């Protein structure tokens, strides 16, 4: 098990070469180009931050740049959180679809487990954008006035929800390294389930911060509700049958 990926890849190519004349399916191609996909997501997630910096320096943020910065950093935090939370349902449904469509290739070709390896990077981006969001608020909005911050958090429920979100993200970020993950064992998964609380609270934060008549938060609320309901449903086995593979396989942990 020294190099699980390489051995799997070689098995795949030999299998498809022997048993079928079809070109390798998309799934296999994607899996084989994991580094490329990683860079695609890495640069894609970085792009909004770069765009914001460029727009700030060239005065292209509209009439109210402070509000634009606060709203855009918040929006991208939430979008990346949603993308992170999509990884597991995506992997499961892709595996299911692959099995359905390519059953003759066996389980090996329905292997979408590599998708989960993007989750670490995307999760770190959530924290990155949350830091930008908080930083813009602390610097421009309240000018690092801690007394003011204290008063505002007590008066404004949306700030309390946002603060709790940020504080909950800190332990998740600190337990990112593979070594910590291994050392924590099953506790790592338990801890990281708090991302569901973060997601729910982030929506509450957005809903409470938005003015009446603004429908944008409800779109995000709908998506996050779907993703959290998926987990509930999977957990209790309502719609999604609880898979034998509970979808929580973490490749990094099996590298040893």
């Amino acid at each position, binding site marked *: 098990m020294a190099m699980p990926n390489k051995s799997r890849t070689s098995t795949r190519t030999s299998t498809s070469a022997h048993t079928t004349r079809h070109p390798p399916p998309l799934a296999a191609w994607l899996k084989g180009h994991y580094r490329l996909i990683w860079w695609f997501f890495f640069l894609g997630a970085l792009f909004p931050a770069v765009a914001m910096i460029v727009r700030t320096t060239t005065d292209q943020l*509209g*009439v*109210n*740049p*402070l*509000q634009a910065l606060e709203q855009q950093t918040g929006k991208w935090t939430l979008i990346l959180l949603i993308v992170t939370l999509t990884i597991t349902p995506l992997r499961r449904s892709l595996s299911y679809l692959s099995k359905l469509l390519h059953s003759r290739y066996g389980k090996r070709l329905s292997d979408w487990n590599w998708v989960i390896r993007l989750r670490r990077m995307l999760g770190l981006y959530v924290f990155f954008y949350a830091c930008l969001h908080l930083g813009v608020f602390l610097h*421009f*909005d*309240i*000018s690092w006035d801690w007394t*003011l911050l204290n*008063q*505002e958090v007590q*008066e*404004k*429920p*949306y700030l309390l929800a946002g603060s709790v979100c940020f504080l909950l993200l800190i332990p998740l970020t600190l337990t990112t390294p593979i070594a910590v993950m291994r050392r924590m064992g099953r506790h790592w998964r338990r801890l990281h389930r708090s991302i569901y609380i973060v997601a729910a609270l982030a929506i509450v934060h957005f809903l*409470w*911060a938005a*003015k*009446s*008549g*603004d429908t944008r938060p409800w779109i995000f609320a709908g998506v996050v509700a779907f993703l959290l309901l998926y987990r509930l449903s999977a957990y209790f086995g309502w719609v999604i049958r609880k898979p034998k593979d509970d979808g929580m396989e973490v490749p990094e942990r099996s590298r040893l």
Partner: protein
Amino acid sequence: MLIRRAKELTDNDVTDRDLYLGRRRFLSVAAAALGAAWVERAAWPAPECGESVSPDSFGMADEVPNSLEQITGYNNYYEFSTNKEAVRILAQDLRINPWTITVDGEVENPLTLDIDALLTGFNTEERIYRLRCVEGWSMVIPWQGFQLCELLKRAKPTSQAKYVQFMSLKRSSEMIGQRQTSLDWPYREGLRIDEAVHPLTLVATGLYGESLPKQNGAPLRIVVPWKYGFKSPKAITHIRLMREQPTTSWNTLAPSEYGFYANVNPDVAHPRWSQRRENRIGELQKTPTRIFNGYAEQVAHLYQNLDLRTHY
């Protein structure tokens, strides 16, 4: 041992029989007199409207107005959209001619004025005012207009007129934001009569020397610079003088967030937006908000007997 004796009663301690029998009449007369005095105090406090106000007299000498692009590109105008940067485009579909404005209610001389008569019938002057939105941003705007007092005076308010209600246009065919029920249309606002006749309260008909742009409330709007922006209704069609405090749109929707008075006050918090500080359009860093938006010297006396924390 000290024994106190009751004080002897004298004739002076006995209420006169006539007075005693007439006590109810006395009370009602006294109440009427007091009531009349109060009504006189509260109603129509401005038989003559104030002199025009020079910018220096309310601390505007050092203020630099925002650019026309900023003022006409960032508008809180729910009749069109909740998106402040979309209003500039959406408002252009509004037809503002023909337009009439009606002044009625507790007046001796109800009026319906055509917009052209209104625009030519009053001497306009420039007023550079700060505008502080309840959402926490602010601008400095050079309006053209005339004192609301001058318009009200023509309708001759009765002594019963204690409040003024403003009603904006309801026309959802052109004001597409009205197709949402975010507010109970038409938009309604109101002032106490002494606020309405205050020399700072303006009927704005122009901006930067041009006629008022549609996104800023054409053809005419009210500007009350010491209150949050939502107290300055746009595109108004009706002004009604009333005995009772009128209902107002935002107050009806969320009474705990938007009071009837809505004076700019950094000490009264809002659940979403910071009222301690404001985001001056054109500056990235927020700055402290001043009580009455910096017009305390001119208007604080109106609220001497009012607890501004409960009457926010």
